[in-house]
């Protein structure tokens, strides 16, 4: 794509640049607004006409967030649920994806399509039945249950991604390792995992983003304050508070988004090469 864009004459590239610019403004505008507001005082945040740049920048909002008793607990819950869900998804998805890529068995196609189809059922449709199910067996407000449910949401995509990444590894490499004396487990551990690492980073990132940003699952299945996540806490403020403090809330939003952004930064290199596959060409 970059080659196509840079090869054109400057005048020919102009529409593309303009379009990217507009797109960037649409996407980044609210982010910039939130960031700016988080440094404003409570009064300035709601001033009319609104200011773009905080006239007196303050860290007060951030300090307030960190001083909040429940923040650390909410944060920990968020981390635990999403890391747990992704770990579980990888634990299931790596062997399943490997099997889908390497073994042929009856009904494999149907099975894979079914797995894919489950990810297309809107989560909201399952909310009520799942709620009654969990309620009747007393499993509401369980961190483990929430983690499993979140994991179930990302397992289908994980299996499919991993299967594709494994397929991109030439099977002769495995044959070779068999001849070298490796068993299936050693092959997966020593060869497949290192070779599909970019792919794993990509699915893990997508999984973290999905689960970290989840609101509804946690809000419904773990309504207990002690079990809530940052996302739930954030929304609760809108309802709880007598008056919403926008500047406080934006500081909260920035902090709540930070881990995901950091994660992207960390795995960016792998993420891109994972999405573009070809990661294993000798």
């Amino acid at each position: 794509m970059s080659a196509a864009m840079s090869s054109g004459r400057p005048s020919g590239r102009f529409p593309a640049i303009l379009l990217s610019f507009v797109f960037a403004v649409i996407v980044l505008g609210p982010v910039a607004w939130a960031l700016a507001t988080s440094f404003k005082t409570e009064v300035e945040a709601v001033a009319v006409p609104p200011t773009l740049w905080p006239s007196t920048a303050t860290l007060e909002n951030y300090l307030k967030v960190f001083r909040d008793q429940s923040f650390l607990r909410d944060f920990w819950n968020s981390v635990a649920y999403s890391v747990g869900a992704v770990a579980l998804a990888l634990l299931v998805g790596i062997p399943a994806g490997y099997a889908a890529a390497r073994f042929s068995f009856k009904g494999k196609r149907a099975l894979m399509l079914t797995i894919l189809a489950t990810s297309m059922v809107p989560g909201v449709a399952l909310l009520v039945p799942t709620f009654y199910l969990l309620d009747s067996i007393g499993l509401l407000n369980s961190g483990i249950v929430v983690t499993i449910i979140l994991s179930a949401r990302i397992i289908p995509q994980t299996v499919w991604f991993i299967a594709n990444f494994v397929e991109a590894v030439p099977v002769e490499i495995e044959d070779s390792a068999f001849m070298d004396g490796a068993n299936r487990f050693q092959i997966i551990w020593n060869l497949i995992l290192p070779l599909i690492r970019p792919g794993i980073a990509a699915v893990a990132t997508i999984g973290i983003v999905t689960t970290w940003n989840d609101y509804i699952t946690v809000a419904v299945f773990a309504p207990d304050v002690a079990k809530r996540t940052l996302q739930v806490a954030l929304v609760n403020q809108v309802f709880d508070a007598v008056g919403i403090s926008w500047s406080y809330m934006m500081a909260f939003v920035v902090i709540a988004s930070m881990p995901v952004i950091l994660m992207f930064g960390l795995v960016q290199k792998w993420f891109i090469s994972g999405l573009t596959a070809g990661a294993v060409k000798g």
Partner: protein
Amino acid sequence: MANVELKAVRKTYGTAPVIHGVTVDIRDGEFVTLVGPSGCGKSTLLRMIAGLEDISGGEIQIGGRTVNSVPPKERDIAMVFQNYALYPHMTVAENMGFSLKLKKAPREQREAGVGRAAEILSLTKLLDRYPRELSGGQRQRVAMGRAIVRNPQVFLFDEPLSNLDAKLRVQMRTEIKELHQRLKTTTVYVTHDQVEAMTMADKIVVMHDGIVEQVGAPLELYNHPANMFVAGFIGSPAMNFLKGRCERGRFLLEDGSALALPASLEHLSSDAVYGVRPEHLVRSDDGLPLTVAVVEPTGAETQVIARHGSQSIVCIFRDSVLPQPGETIRVRPDVSRVHVFSERDGRRLS
């Protein structure tokens, strides 16, 4: 080291039979090539010897032991693949030492093994490189190094040189041959290239559509092909085949021209196919008239593609007088090197 015996080996994928009962006896230390056109089942057979494919029927023995249900790693075999199949995330040394690492060999032993193989293959300077930093020929050598390190009973090669350019292929051919002469390990080498098969092998197994057409030393196959398939496959350019009839000690072409028959077929009287290699046609004033179509001099010899009626005939001449396209030349087969095949099943009659 070990001998390898294939006894009526069969392979079926689902319901599709691919190998229809192959029996071959490979002696200890022998260099055997499996040659045949693409899709004839060479790789499948090799992979069955390796243990990478199940054996649907028959028996494979290595060193006198039946290995039908023995997993690859217990067969004491090493295999080199066409696309090298190196581990991309490991250095050359790690690639070569992987099998020893799996065996939990102590570090010094691993280093010694890798060092020895690297020395044999002149890879010592490349040990810290990654496969992506190597040329095609170097990768091929690493793949061989990985095999040597294991010090196996049998080497298997599956078209190891197909991905190399022509010059490197010839060079590596020699290297592999030298390696075999040095290590004397039983080797089964798959190729679709009959020149490779001829130049490297002690013994050639010619395969076609999942069966063995003939087994023999290179010159044996060249001089006494068992049937038209082997006759046409071995030798380059390919043997000329002329349809006609054996009658009263002569071979009559469809247009009535006559060619000499070997004495052994004097009394034969039936439809047949007359086979003569391009290099066994000599110019002779009383020979078969041919119209020259294309002349291809290569220096040492000249390949002439000519026609007799609708039949195309290839000749190779060593003299320096080149015929011209359109010219009529007369050629006569060297009757001692003529092959006659059954019209019905292609089997050799002479």
